[in-house]
């Protein structure tokens, strides 16, 4: 499916924010990610036309960054941190638990497209180790047991919008710092929830 006029309009709005068109490549890839769940060939072709670079140049940039997915993702992207602070705080067990529950290995998506699991590098939640993200919404202090509960919750309740505060309350533990501000914002796609892309949502 090529991009419909509304999406193209949004894309052009984003392009206008930058002095040079090519700078909009990053946000446009998020548009594609939100639409398809990954960077598909059609999106690459559309973006290539909008920005004026070749398809392989688009793919070259997209494949450089881990957040642009090259294969279809499930509804919930489970990212578990394995960098140093989380590693020495038992992230291994969290990872193993999630792997067992979902039956997935690193970077895999399950058959009914519910979960995509990935082991990621430091997400800046080291004070709240071990930390995970669901669709790039951070939940800190997730013990191995709570991790299983989180997965179960997602699978059974199938929440439409992922809100970090909500999940933190249910499944989180130690935080990196006091979050203080009440926040109902989140996202419902595997592209980070951000106003400029149009993926920020409220519950």
């Amino acid at each position, binding site marked *: 499916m090529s991009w419909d006029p509304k999406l193209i309009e949004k894309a052009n709005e984003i392009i206008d924010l930058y002095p040079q068109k090519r700078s909009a490549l990053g946000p446009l890839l998020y548009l594609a990610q939100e639409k398809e769940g990954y960077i598909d*060939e059609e999106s*690459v072709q559309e973006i290539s036309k909008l920005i004026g*670079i*070749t*398809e*392989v*140049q688009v*793919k*070259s940039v997209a*494949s*450089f*960054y881990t957040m642009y997915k090259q294969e279809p993702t499930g509804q919930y992207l489970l990212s578990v941190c394995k960098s140093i602070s989380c590693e020495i705080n038992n992230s291994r067990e969290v990872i193993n638990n999630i792997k067992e529950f979902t039956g997935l290995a690193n970077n895999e998506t399950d058959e009914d497209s519910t979960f995509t699991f990935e082991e990621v590098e430091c997400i800046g939640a080291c004070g709240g180790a071990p930390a995970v993200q669901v669709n790039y919404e951070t939940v800190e202090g997730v013990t191995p047991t709570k991790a299983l509960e989180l997965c179960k919750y997602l699978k059974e309740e199938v929440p439409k919008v992922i809100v970090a505060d909500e999940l933190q309350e249910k499944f989180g533990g130690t935080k990196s710092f006091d979050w203080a501000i009440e926040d109902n914002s989140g996202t419902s796609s595997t592209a980070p929830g951000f106003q400029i892309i149009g993926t920020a949502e409220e519950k």
Partner: protein
Amino acid sequence: MTENIKFTVDGKELEAKSGELLIEACEKSGIHIPRFCWHKRLDPVGMCRMCLVEVETPRGKALVPSCTTEITEDLVVDTESEVVTKAQEGILEFLLINHPLDCPVCDKAGECPLQDQTMAYGPGESRFVEEKRHFEKPIPISEVILLDRERCILCARCTRFSDEISGDPLIEFIQRGNKTEVNTFPNEPFRSYFSGNTVQICPVGALTSTSYRFKARPWDLKKVSSTCNCCSVGCSIELNTSQNKMLRILGEDNEFTNQGWLSDKGRYNFDYLHSENRVLNILSNSEGSFKEISIAEATTKIKDKIEELENPNIKFLIGSHSTNEEYFAINEIANYLNKDKYLSRDSSNVYFCDDLLFDGYFGDEYSQAKLEDLDSSETIVVWSEDIKDNLPILYLRIKKAVKNGTKLIVFGHTNTAIAGLADIYLGKDVVSNKFDLIVNPSEIEDLKNNIEGKKVTVVAGKSTVYQKKESLDKLINYLNDSSDLKVLNSFSKGNTFGALQNIDEVKGLNEFCNEFDSDAKNIVFTIGVNPVNSSHFAQAIKEKLTSSDFVISMDLFINETTELADLILPTTSLGEKEGTVTNIEMRVMKQNKILPAPGSTLSEWEYLTAIQSMLGVDVKYENESEINSYLVKEYKDQDQVPTFDNLNKPRNLFGVINRKDININTKDLEERDFSLLMVRRLYGDSTTQINSPSISMLGAGRFIEVNSSTAKKYGINEKVANFIQGSNSILINIDINEFLPDDLVIAPINRRGFENIDPSKDFEITEAKNREELSVN
């Protein structure tokens, strides 16, 4: 003017220009610093880290990449210290940990920088015991190139070449870190006119040519320098043969012309030399069947025919693949056989087969340009046929000049490939669909501001055979009056300038058709041309040849033109003859012989002297060198004559520029409407190409180019359609090109299917009904 400064390397004091790269300055002084990613013709990136050297800094010794370090006054460099040697060993070990042990089956072995540098600078063994990276190998990334990602050392030479030099970034790095690979986008192969260059500059066997793969080892090859004949840039090439077969052509770095690069056509179009379709013996055509005869019989036939016809018109249709010496010989015999004798203008009987031939700008009032003038000019102006398709290396030179700041002004509508590079593109508001200049050049503000009082190089030629010379005159004369102008006459075919320099008066195909008197007796020589295949005059020429009393063709193959001949005299081709050729700058360069003449083929001049002998004329020369000694007498600069000896001298390696008087005598075509603009594409159905399996498929595509509103007018809303004229129906791809003006439809003249299309007649474009035809050829 940068002065020389002193710097020290390994204790030796050296001199170089300030700002020069350390690695290059050392190279010039005989100190070799190993490297992979640095290439003299590409911007340095300092990625492979092989060229690390130690330099003295205020804070002690620092390890820096010499390819990105500029020479500064009193720089002290150590290329052999322990730290440097360890770094070199380390880098090679790193490169080899994932590099497969493919040497026994890899094309590059024997001429491989990785092998050579490992032997010279590398560790004896690898300490890597883990599993190497694996990729499917090799994968075709285009019809002519294969990619082996396991061998790739990620030096980025190929991706940088495609981005910086050729402007076709169709290959790029995918993924990151250890998983990085070079690749194309799925279904977007590496279709670039210049892709072969990446194979030549790849420092390992990651990129290989389909045509050369597994054919030979470099130590088996015989090598000789020569000059390419595909277009009039005359790139310097190296011919590689083994067991008397041409196996490969490489680009040589001629500072003045191609600077190391070749188009894929120049690089890969040579299989035809050994094609089984090549004519190896003289053929006599009696009522449609060809019989082999000897040269004695052939020359006798010719002599007899000339006598029989009693003072016939004898005309010569010549091409662009002959050497200067051959043109000289043609000129001699043409004059001798000219019924009207060359006593006055208009009486020449030699016609050059380029539709776009016209008088050009060769008078004393015009200063002729060299390719290096593109770099030193402030502005380049272009009005000519499509440069990228017909003078591909000129396209690269223009692109390079633009990258370095030269302004580019392009007139429409045949140069849309460089429109993207142009600072100013003058399309439908300035040039009509019939290529009339509808505005006075002095009134084009953008043009005026960029050329008045400035150094300008103009690439000048007719965009189409229907164009009036007047339009071009207006532009060129304005430029000549208002700027410091140098002219590159853009005649694009092979050794055109060799023909112009060595034939007393050259006319074109229009003149041939107009001057042909069907009521008289006519003998026509066709020498290395096939105008019946792809020329605007194809039909007319076919008629004339058919109605001629005797046609003698010198060529390599039986083709649309030679099949009309009574005698086919098979000739030698690239690498099979020695001679000189002249390029677009009037640079005379050498072509050398490395292959024996196959079968009973002879060079053109050998046939002509045999005919002359048969006619009782004294022949002054017995070999090419002797012919050359005659033709050099007419060069204007007698201190720098392009004799074979002179050209073989090292300082003349890149040829010598020398001029002769040029006499072209053509007239504009009668004004006529044309509905279709037919242009030559780089790849096509010329006889050499269809007999070269390595690249014949590249010239198979059939397409037309229109802008989107023209497409709408014709009701085209898909990517394919049927092109219909009379009984001809061709399945074509539609290429949308927004640089084109409305109602201009561009079609290729040299693609199968279009040979019977008449650009002056109407045509239709309809929905493609029969899609099964959409197979190549």
